[in-house]
Each structure stands twice: as structure tokens, then as C-alpha cells.
């Protein structure tokens, strides 16, 4: 008879090893899925994980895309991980991402066609504030009235999507766009364009921001009192209360930071890779970032790696769509599977598996 015995402390070895195991298990299960879809599993896995980086013809095009796709995922996931650690569940990052993009792009477009160097910094600030404010709604409702932040933040995603539809056909619509929905293209507005810092690498300002966020989060969690309080609240809420952690402050900090980072991600995306505000410029990064946060074990360095891996599945998925005719949704499912395997294998880091002979226990 098998039974599980709780470890006094989560195993550090398994905590680091389970994500790798989960990726391998997902590859196997994904391979079976691809096989069932009538594709060669090995070729599909190679197209997704190997070709985007090392293929002779595709590599040079897709390698820069890796950073472009990973940056928003990492930015958002870093913010989410702070709250998730403390048991504060912001799952509406998609909405904060959209609001950041709308606010930031709005500020930029208001100054069209100025070429002041202050425009882009102003947009970045507005993007962060937009996301922050959107996350403050569930935050304030939670601290004032005790409203469930999971449901409120999620409902606000749908509100933000409707706002996006509204502004891209109204307020922010390109006046010279001959009635097509969508704003002016930031590529034709150099002062507001989120350009590559180093040409040809995909390294735009958002990527830089993502790296800075990783470093800040690392320092915060390991060296700062607030980071300690975040970790303490997650591991032992009662002890945290006795230690004088102010829950109101913590909730507002976690939700506000994750909102601001999601807003930044939205702004960098809309002013760079997406190029314009359109009804569907957002591509679900806010939700995928939840998987990234867990795959990275809510740890800044882990999230950095997880974000790159998840970006690889996006690019590889597109490549597999092109080369093998693999349906795009298969990749979405692949990412969902990864989350499941990860959660399933988590049991290994919290429990010890015992095979005992006497069933009387």
C-alpha cells in the first residue's frame, strides 16, 4: 500500500527538479497528442523545441522572436508571482495588460506627430499607471469590503476587452485609417515607437524592463523586509499576523505591482511588436503568464527560464502550424498540460512516498 507522508520542509531538490520532469512528461503526452492528430511526434517536438533556435533558415528569424515573446510573459509573471506567494490571486492580468496598453498608447497618440524624446517615457509611465489602477479596483474592494479578488479581477478582463473594442473603433481610431478599426501605427511615429535597442536581436525596451523586473524581484524577495513579509504570509499566515504584517498594505502592494507590470507589458507590446491598438492585439499573455509563474516556481530566476521556454512553445507552435499543419490550439493545450503535470508532480516536493507493508497504519 502506498501512502504519502508530509515532509517537514518542502524538498529543495524536488522543487527544482519537478519543473524539468513536468516538461519531459508534457513532451511525452504532447507527442502522443500529436501522434493522435496524425503527425510524426518526434518531428513535431523537434519543430517546436529545436528548429526555432537552431534551424538554418528559420533560426535567424525566430531567435529574436524568443525575447519578444518572452518579455511580456516574464514581466507579467514576475508581478503575479509576488501575489501568488502571499495567497493573493490576481488572475486578471490580461485586463491590466489591455488597460496599460490603452492608457500608454493614448498618451502617445495624443501628442502625434511630436518628436519630443519625452513621449516614450510618458507612455511607459501611463502604461504602468493604467495597469496599476485597473488592479487597484480588486485591491481596494478586497481591503475595504473583503470582496473576492479572483472573481473581480477576472470580471475586469471582460470589461477591459469591451473597452478595447470601443477605443479601437472610436477614441483612438486612426483618423486617416479610412474607417478601419485600429489606431495609428506606431511604426510611423518614431518618437513613440518601442524600437529595438540592439538591432536584430529582438531586444526592445520591454525586454530590458523584464530583466530589470527579474533583478528587482530577486532582491526584494531575498534582501528586503517586504519580500520577507510576502513569503511569510504565504507560508504561515497566522505567524505573519503575529509578526505584525499589515495585510492591507501587502494586498495593495502585490496587486498594484502585478497590475503595473502587466500594464507595462501591454504598453511595450502595443507600441512595439503589435504596433497599433486593435481589437485583438492582446494574445492571451495575461493568462499564459499564470502558467509561467507556476512553472518558474514563483521564483524570479525560475520565471525568467520558464518565460523563455513558454515563448519557445509559442514560436515553435507557429512554426509547427506552418510546416506540419499542426492546429494552433494544440499548442494552447500543450501549455495547459504543462501546468497540470507541474501541479501533479508538486506532490513530490511536499510529500514523501512510502511503500509500507502493514496496511494497519
Amino acid at each position: 500500500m502506498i501512502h504519502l507522508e508530509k515532509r517537514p520542509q518542502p524538498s529543495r531538490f524536488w522543487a527544482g527538479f519537478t519543473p524539468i520532469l513536468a516538461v519531459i512528461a508534457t513532451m511525452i503526452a504532447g507527442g502522443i497528442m500529436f501522434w493522435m492528430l496524425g503527425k510524426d511526434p518526434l518531428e513535431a517536438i523537434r519543430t517546436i523545441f529545436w528548429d526555432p533556435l537552431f534551424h538554418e533558415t528559420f533560426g535567424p528569424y525566430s531567435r529574436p522572436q524568443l525575447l519578444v515573446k518572452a518579455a511580456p510573459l516574464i514581466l507579467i509573471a514576475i508581478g503575479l508571482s509576488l501575489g501568488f506567494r502571499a495567497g493573493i490571486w490576481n488572475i486578471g492580468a490580461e485586463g491590466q495588460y489591455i488597460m496599460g496598453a490603452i492608457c500608454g498608447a493614448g498618451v502617445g497618440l495624443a501628442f502625434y506627430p511630436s518628436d519630443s524624446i519625452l513621449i516614450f517615457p510618458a507612455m511607459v509611465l501611463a502604461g504602468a499607471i493604467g495597469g496599476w489602477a485597473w488592479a487597484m479596483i480588486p485591491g481596494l474592494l478586497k481591503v475595504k469590503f473583503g470582496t473576492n479578488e479572483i472573481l473581480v479581477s477576472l470580471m475586469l478582463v471582460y470589461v477591459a476587452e469591451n473597452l478595447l473594442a470601443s477605443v479601437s473603433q472610436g477614441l483612438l481610431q486612426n483618423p486617416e485609417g479610412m474607417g478601419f478599426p485600429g489606431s495609428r501605427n506606431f511604426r510611423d511615429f518614431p518618437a513613440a515607437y518601442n524600437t529595438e535597442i540592439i538591432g536584430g536581436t529582438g531586444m526592445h525596451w520591454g525586454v530590458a524592463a523584464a530583466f530589470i523586473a527579474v533583478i528587482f524581484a530577486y532582491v526584494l524577495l531575498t534582501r528586503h523586509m517586504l519580500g520577507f513579509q510576502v513569503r511569510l504570509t504565504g507560508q504561515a499566515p497566522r505567524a505573519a499576523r503575529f509578526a505584525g504584517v499589515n495585510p492591507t498594505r501587502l494586498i495593495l502592494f502585490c496587486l498594484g505591482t502585478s497590475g503595473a507590470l502587466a500594464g507595462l507589458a501591454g504598453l511595450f507590446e502595443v507600441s512595439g511588436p503589435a504596433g497599433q491598438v486593435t481589437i485583438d492585439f492582446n494574445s492571451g499573455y495575461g493568462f499564459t503568464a499564470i502558467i509561467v509563474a507556476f512553472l518558474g516556481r514563483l521564483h524570479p530566476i525560475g520565471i525568467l527560464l520558464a518565460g523563455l521556454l513558454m515563448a519557445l512553445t509559442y514560436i515553435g507552435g507557429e512554426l509547427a502550424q506552418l510546416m506540419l499543419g499542426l492546429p494552433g490550439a494544440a499548442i494552447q493545450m500543450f501549455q495547459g498540460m504543462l501546468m497540470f503535470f507541474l501541479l501533479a508532480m508538486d506532490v513530490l516536493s511536499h510529500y514523501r512516498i512510502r511503500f509500507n507493508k502493514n496496511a494497519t497504519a
Partner: protein
Amino acid sequence: MDLSQINPLLLLASLMVAATPILLAAIGEAVVEKAGVLNLGVEGMMITGAVVGFAIGVNTGSPAMGFVAAAVAGAALSMLFGVLVLYLMSNQVATGLGLTLFGLGLSSLIGKPYEGMKAPSMAKWDIPLLSDIPVLGPILFRHDPMVYVSLIIVTATWYVLTRTRAGLILRGVGENHDAAHALGYKVVRVRLMAIAFGGACAGLGGAYVSLVRVPQWVEGMTAGAGWIALAIVVFASWRPWRVLLGAYLFGGITVLQLNLQAAGAAIPVEILAMSPYVVTILVLVVISLRGQHGAPGSLGRIFHATH
């Protein structure tokens, strides 16, 4: 705007249709939460139910078969959640979110070939005599069978939860799983059954969207209905009749805003379209002002039997 275009009788009749998917999902989730498990995967199970129900409905030509298949699919997906949460003791919030993300991917994978197809039509049940009552007849008694099935499920849930021994055990497991375990009740088994019931109900709710309400398959078509169902369970303080009230109130808002859109109200379409979500937030705020009454004691907590 021409408000006279809005026929109050049709409005009330379509309210029941609009509310049914959320009602089904919410009553299932209420049972799951009463057993002490928080399943945030309702949206994922609904959308999977929607696509499976639609696919089977189209292939067999029988909506009834579609509903059965959707319930089975919802329950099967919920078992994935159940095994993770109950046997591998994973975090319920994270697992539920994972289930939703997985379900959304799975459904769009299955649904691709079915885009643009039309669902087999479902005959309405004009209940003899009753449907001829003026005013009340068209509102209450001229619907498709699933509307009545959903009401039967609510009634049965209420009866089982509050009037039977099985319901008492289920509630006991949800209130205090350690005490229930000490008394010898199989906590994990009870919870697994509750989760399966919740999954089946969510699947039925999803299939109702794709087979009756819309009726065709569109990617992501449940559009947050599963999350609204979760909010309604909180609104209802985990009581079956209040779940019914909450779902119908919500259905009323949805139908009203759709009618206002159709009547060409001076309010922008986007504002109307976001109103159900805004109202849900407002309702949640009002409920939380009152305090969290009735939440099961062990809700969301991990149960690990050492003996």
C-alpha cells in the same frame, strides 16, 4: 431608441433560456463547494461541454445525445482536477485555473472542424394546458426540455442537500473534513463524487450554450459564464434556491442588455456588453459588505489523512 420594440413577455421567456447555462454550472459548483472543494475550472469544463455536446449533437443529429456526452465530458475533465486535488494534494486555486486554461485549449482543438455548422434543432416542449395559460404560459411553459431539467436538478440538489443523510454527510465533509474523517466518512470519495457532479453540470451548461442558446460552435463562446457561475454561488450563500434566484437575475440583465442593443439604445454597444460583468462585480461587493455567511468551513483547504 424604441423601447416599445421590447416585448416584456418575450423578455421574460428568454430570461429563462439565458439563465439556464449559468444555473446549471452554478448549482454543480455549489455542491462541489458544499463538499469543501473550490473548483475554479468551471469555465474550462463548460467550454469543453459546449464543444463535445455540439460535436456529438451534430454527428448523431440528436441534441439529447449531445447533452449526455457533454455531461460525461465535463465529469471526465473534472476527474482530472479531482485526482490532482484530492490524491496529489495540489493547490485548488492553481489547479482550477489550470483546468480552465486546459479546457479552453482542448475545446478549440476539438472545435475547429465544427466552426460555422448549425446545431440540430431541439423541439420545444409545449406543456399541454399549462402553456395555454395567458401570460404565464408563454413565459414558463413553452421551453426546451433542458430548462425544465435544470429546474429539476436544482430541486433535487436542494432536497438531497437539506433533507437526506447523504446531503448531511456531504455538508459535514465540507464543514470540517477532519471531524468527518474521524467519524469514519470517506472524505476523498465524497468529494470526488461531488466534483464529478459539478463537472457534469458544468458540461450540461456549456452544451446548452452551443446547442440551444447560440446555437453553433464559436471558439471561447462561454465568454466567462463559468466565472459568473462561481460568483453566483457566493451570491447565493451556497443555497440552491438562491442559486436559482441569482442565475435568473443575471439572465435578466443579460437579456435586457441584448434587447437594448437590438432596440438601438443610445448607450454604446460596448458599455451594454460589459454590463453583466460590472453588475457581477457590484453584486459581489454588496454580498461581501454583508460578510461571508455560509461559506463551508473547509472550503479550499487540503485534506491529508495521516491515519
